[in-house]
């Protein structure tokens, strides 16, 4: 059995995302799979353009936070089957993906609502910090 991944070093690439979605889709009682992928934007901040974000995480606390969020969502949404949350650590360039949330349910309604709920909880509860790196190599803590 493969170990669950909570954190990936660097961006979440397409083939990895596809693999995670495919694994979540296993089983014939799932009718809906809702996916959120968070991507780094090339924001303009005070005249400087973001070229990348460097993420740092408190990994042991993050695992506990992910497990807690999953437990909360499974408890709150009776039709939800699985909740997957994976966050990047390290440098992720603008245009690359740094967060993946995949929620499966028997039906689309709870899949989509639970996915939104999960993303909001991730933003509030995951011990992750980000440093915006600008094109001129300066940086700013978000």
């Amino acid at each position, binding site marked *: 059995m493969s170990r669950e991944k909570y954190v990936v070093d660097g961006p979440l690439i397409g083939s990895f995302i596809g693999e995670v979605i495919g694994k979540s889709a296993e089983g014939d009682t799932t009718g809906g799979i809702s996916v959120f992928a968070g991507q780094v934007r090339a924001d303009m901040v005070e005249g400087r353009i973001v070229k990348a974000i460097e993420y740092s995480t408190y990994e042991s606390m993050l695992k506990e936070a992910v497990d807690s969020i999953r437990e909360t969502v499974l408890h709150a949404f009776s039709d939800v089957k699985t909740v997957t949350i994976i966050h990047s650590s390290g440098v992720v360039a603008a245009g690359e993906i740094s967060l993946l949330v995949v929620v499966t349910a028997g039906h689309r309604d709870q899949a989509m609502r639970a996915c939104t709920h999960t993303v909001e909880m991730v933003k509030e509860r*995951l*011990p*992750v*910090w980000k440093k915006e790196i600008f094109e001129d190599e300066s940086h700013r803590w*978000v």
Partner: protein
Amino acid sequence: MAIKVLFFGVLAERAGCSERIYNDITDTNSLEMKVAEEIEGLKEYSYIISVNREMTLENTALNDGDEVAFLPPFAGG
């Protein structure tokens, strides 16, 4: 008695490291005072302290081997 102290985000940058060991510190208030001597302007930053991955909002006794973290506001997602 040794305590492992972790720094994250901007505080790791200000501390110049992500981890330090402190000896003979018995509670989080004393630890904060000690860390404030080493990180200039610590009080100007927002952070919460956790002990063994549990957030604390008040002075907490520390034991040998505890892991304390200085956590700036989360910014994940």
